[in-house]
């Protein structure tokens, strides 16, 4: 199948979204952006992405709330969700994993880290 796979990058920082989009595009994903959880949810209802790189702390709807709602959507269990957050306390990371995130990236990150995590969850 030659369909281009999509990765939704959800982050309230425009700069962070641009950096992440450039990296996922190098990994052969089509990158799409959303500035908060609600915007991301609207996108997912229209077209479910293959992967989601998800910030935690965001205005309107945070990453955890988005993940909870996404999983309740039809086909909402399909996207592989990788958290990407400045939060690095082990108990908080465990919470994200318990809520169904496949992997977790602690900011700051670089291209190698995203590639390594995408490989770990079988996206590449």
């Amino acid at each position, binding site marked *: 199948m030659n369909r281009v796979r999509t990765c939704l990058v959800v982050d309230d920082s425009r700069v962070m979204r641009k950096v992440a989009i450039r990296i996922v595009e190098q990994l052969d994903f089509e990158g799409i952006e959303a500035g908060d959880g609600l915007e991301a949810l609207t996108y997912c209802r229209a077209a479910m992405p293959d992967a989601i790189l998800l910030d935690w702390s965001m205005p309107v709807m945070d990453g955890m709330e988005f993940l909870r709602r996404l999983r309740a959507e039809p086909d909402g269990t399909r996207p592989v969700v990788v958290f990407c957050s400045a939060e*690095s*306390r*082990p108990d908080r*990371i*465990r919470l994200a*994993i318990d809520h169904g995130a496949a*992997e*977790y*990236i*602690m900011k*700051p*990150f*670089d291209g*190698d*880290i995203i590639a*390594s*995590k995408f*490989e*770990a969850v*079988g996206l*590449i």
Partner: protein
Amino acid sequence: MTPAELAFVADLVRHHAGVVLRADKAFFIETRLGPVARREKVPGVPALLDQLRQHPDPVLTRQVVEATLMQDTSFFRDRAVFTRIGEAVLPSLAARRGHSPVRVLVAGCATGQEAYSIAMLATDLAVPAGIEIVAVDFGSLPLEKARTGLYTHFEVQRGLPIRRLLAHFDKIDENWRVHAELRQMIAWVEQNLLDDLTPLGTFDLVLCRNVLGSLTPEAEARVLASLEAVCRPDATLVVGAQETPRLSATFTGTGHPGIWQHGPSRHPAAPGRPVPVPARTRT
């Protein structure tokens, strides 16, 4: 770095570690030697090499060789190899060993990620008599780091699944430290791989990955002979997935890239011939 300076460093590492330095490594060597020059309080790498040429001090020589050869490594590097070790190699060794511990040698352990990866796999398995890991490297600085088990934010995010990070590390300020339980499984030994390894005992699993490919043919033969000398009769030898070392007839391929089985050479007509490996498929 001038060609003469590069040639000088290349001679040092060939002589002291049997390693062939590639010419395209010039930039990378300069970066590695910068900190050595600062420690020695000399103004820059050319001055450092000048000093060494005029006064060939063994301690400084060693520091230069060590810094030049410092290996870049990561946790679970080449995931498929570790999957195979965790799912097949270690369980079968544990079953065969019974009441004696499974002994693992990591030859060229650099900053320790590979040895700790093995230790993590071992904790997943119930190895009745436990596992003993001996990790050997030429460099005292990488070993010092390995021994502390302290890794940066970036290092723990390369190759290490988040669940394993949570299971086996504590967060200390901005860094992460391997649990004492894992650190106690590993003995760190500062030694040149060109020297005799037999004082370390014999091993069930020997890893020497991405080391052999950089050696001179003489050094490679010497390291392979000393690795073979510490392999138990039914040991598994793991080299780099892309490496094709000139192994003796007592090793047979397993069909998994880089993983070789030690045993009596039953097929002298086809010594050490690897089993054909299907091309790696990516999804």
